[in-house]
């Protein structure tokens, strides 16, 4: 009788939205599109779909349901059957909507130069607005150590003296994944000075996280180390090379030949501003496609804009919001003269210092808590005005 009652209960009990969680999809190796999707189901069944760790889509409950079936590789029939069983919608309509959803995502992935609003009928949401379950990215400063011949000021403030162990970092990655953070960037100091870097990347990739490495590239002179790094599944590189060192260009050439998305960062200073145009030309000549720019002072706006202009003419895509030195002084910031641009620090990303302390951003010295020891509710306060 109990089982009959339970069956009837199930029959009559209301359908609930999908529970919060994070799901990962990696296009198969034979798929030339080579893309990754992370779907994070939020409270109430809405979702955030992150395409290639860069494009953030906010989904209403219904779209999130379609995305759920997409990341699980469901056929149109399977998805339509599941959706029509849970929603007041016919099988045919669910199937049509699912096909439509797949096509829009596919178009976004394969034709990135289309305007999603005009051509794909997306609406636009200002970045970093609206409630989200967790940040999109965690910047992990594995160490504040630097190569021997590097000037100390080129590293973030050396505030901490201890470094987490390998297992502690792994625990942080696990916790981050559980909380729905899909993207890690390993930074420092110089993260390649950690002997366990490859092991850490492997662990994060195994979980399903997108990984990026921010490095000066000095260890890539050892080609075998670079090859080993590529074997981990590392998704992207952010190089902050010392352009005046001849070996840097050898490293850049090697990286440009590798199958990894690479961004080269240049910090424009009074000392190097005359050489920046030449740097950009050489970077473009090597076939590198992505550029990050910042300036080490406020008097370099003209140079920043000129570099941005030259980069666009050379076909170098500008990226920003990365944990780079002087990250707030970039050409993109200059677009927003009235400072209307919302900041993602403490919301879209968090920064973890080598001892596990969490800051909103590498340039904001405000400890929110310790990722290892403090509860998530204490660390994650995106709406806290003091954050």
């Amino acid at each position, binding site marked *: 009788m109990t089982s009959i009652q339970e069956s009837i209960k199930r029959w009559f009990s209301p*359908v609930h939205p999908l529970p919060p969680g994070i799901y990962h999809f990696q296009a198969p190796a034979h798929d030339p599109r080579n893309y990754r999707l992370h779907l994070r189901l939020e409270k109430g069944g809405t979702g955030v779909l992150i395409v290639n760790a860069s494009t953030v889509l906010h989904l209403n409950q219904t779209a999130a349901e379609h995305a759920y079936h997409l990341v699980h590789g469901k056929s149109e029939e399977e998805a339509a059957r599941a959706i029509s069983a849970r929603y007041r919608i016919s099988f045919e309509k669910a199937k049509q909507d699912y096909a439509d959803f797949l096509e829009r995502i596919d178009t976004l992935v394969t034709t990135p130069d*289309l305007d999603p609003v005009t051509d794909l009928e997306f609406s636009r949401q200002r970045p970093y607005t609206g409630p989200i379950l967790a940040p999109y990215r965690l910047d992990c400063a594995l160490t504040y150590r630097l190569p021997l011949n590097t000037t100390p000021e080129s590293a973030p403030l050396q505030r901490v003296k201890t470094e987490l162990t390998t297992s502690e970092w792994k625990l942080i990655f696990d916790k981050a994944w559980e909380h729905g953070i899909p993207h890690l960037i390993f930074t420092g100091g110089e993260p390649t000075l950690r002997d366990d870097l490859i092991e850490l990347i492997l662990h994060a990739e195994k979980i399903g996280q997108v990984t990026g490495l921010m490095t000066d590239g000095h260890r890539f002179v050892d080609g075998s180390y670079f090859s080993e790094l590529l074997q981990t599944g590392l998704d992207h590189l952010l190089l902050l090379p010392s352009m005046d060192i001849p070996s840097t260009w050898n490293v850049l050439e090697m990286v440009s030949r590798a199958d990894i998305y690479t961004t080269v960062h240049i910090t424009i200073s009074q000392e190097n501003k005359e050489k920046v145009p030449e740097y950009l030309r050489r970077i473009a000549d090597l076939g590198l496609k992505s550029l990050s720019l910042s300036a080490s002072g406020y008097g370099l706006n003209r140079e920043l804009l000129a570099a941005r202009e030259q980069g666009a003419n050379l076909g170098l895509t500008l990226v920003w919001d990365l944990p780079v030195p002087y990250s707030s002084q970039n050409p993109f910031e200059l*677009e927003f003269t009235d400072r209307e641009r919302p900041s993602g620090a403490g919301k879209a990303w968090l920064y973890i210092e080598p001892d596990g302390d969490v800051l909103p951003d590498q340039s904001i010295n405000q400890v929110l808590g310790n990722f290892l020891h403090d509860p998530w509710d204490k660390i994650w306060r995106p709406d806290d005005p003091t954050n």
Partner: protein
Amino acid sequence: MSIRNSYTLKSITLLSLLCILLFLPGNAFAQSYSFSLPEQFVDVYWNDDGTSSIDYLYVFVNDVSAPPIEFVDVGVPTRDYDLNSVVAYINGIELRDIERSPYVDPGVAVGLGEHSILPGESGEVRVFIGRVRDVLYPDDQDSEYVSAVFGTSYFEPGSVHGSTDMRVRFHFPPSVQPEEPRWHASGSGWPSEPEAGIDDEGRVTYEWRNQNARGDTQYFFGASFPAKYVPSGSIVKESPPGAGAGSTGGVNPLACLSPGLIPFLCFGGFIALIAWGAVAGQRRKLQYLPPKIAIEGHGIKRGLTAVEAAILLEQPMDKILTMILFSVLKKNAAQVVNRDPLELEISDPLPEGLHLYEQNFLEAFREKQSADRRKALQKTMVALVRSVGEKMKGFSRKETVEYYRSIIERAWQQVEAAETPEVKSKAFDENMEWTMLDKDYDDRTREVFHQGPVFVPVWWPRYDPTFSRTLSGPSTQPTMTAPSTGRSTPAMPQLPGAEFAASIATGVQNFSSKVVGNITDFTSSITNITNPPPKPPVSTSGRSYSGRSGGGSCACACACAGCACACAGGGR
């Protein structure tokens, strides 16, 4: 969740429940909605056209273990209501998902969508029904009066718990005087007579209030007022449904049935059970709203030059090339030595600050062979389109286009606002690259300068090699006129506005016919590179989102589809 009123199929529900209780030892609704309703305020406006407007305000507190409250079904007194007059809000945010309720007849269903009230949370839902007809009946005690009766919405028993602070306020037609209305008897627990008042619009009000009302109980309230204040045609002649004002329908419907009807009704009840099961099966499902995707991206991309904006605005290629020509002439980087065919004398050294597309343009004109020049101009345009595409990454194309359209309009306004011909011409020169982006450039130029000449800009002789010669010749056009300031300054050359505009248009035509040849072919040669044909659609949805012309044959720079990148990427 739903809200029901007295007009739902109560008897079917009762019979079905009876049958269910015969088969189920427990409560089949154990996981159903569960919430409290601390407040329910209803304002009923009796309008002078004989209709009513109803303003519901509910405060829901959803239980921690209950499912989210996703939509609210609100009963309406009659079927003759205007769905378009219904507006709804949750916590002050307007809701768009409003339709006729599939569960409450008559009634409206309001989808809360992303503002669903989650377990443990509360929400204030307001539903305003602007126009309901057939709500007034003759008063059975006074033929000069009409009776206005209203029954509150109520919730499924078992879903709502706790007491409710309930207030029902009648607002009589504007002309009704305070001493005229008469109240009907109200149910137990309610004050024997309502509290009278005047609302913000000066209308007489009656208000009933009970702070210990129940959310799962229907209450009736009634009043009569003089019939002369409403059109006689708006008064319903039949008896009102459930007209036992004040009754909540607590009578067992089976008690008044003849024994011969009971087997029939039991069979009917079984059918009703099946029907109810089907309805319940649908109702347990989630409401399906169209899938919606919002992309994180920035809005307006500022800082584009007029030439770059022209790419974004999909201006014709020949016009864009003419704009570049004017741009290099203004910067004194070149001079036209022959307009047909167009030949330039390029300055040496070149001035500083030239954009790459200007440098490329000048390089193209160093080519002597027209085919080589055309090829070089094609490369210039390809590079320009791609450069704009790079700059647009992370920004909204749509908003940026609107922004630059507003700049074009502001440019015209500056010209039009100038009061003297000199100032007007100066403003025209300063804004020329933006005004040129207007598709009605020729007409507007003629219109703006219809009453006077254009004082040509200082660089004009570099564009029109005949201009300087005619200045020194005997011709009457163009003329030299002293500025109206009367100061001793060099005279400014001028052209009639129409001639000036025509000269610009000729420049564009020269480009299309003499420099790049067939403009359609020229455009295609660019769009085929910047905007290659899309791959065939992969789905069966019947819609295409490629949105590209694929190197189409139009003469405009619809290569811009290739620079419409916006939003995607760029950020992290």
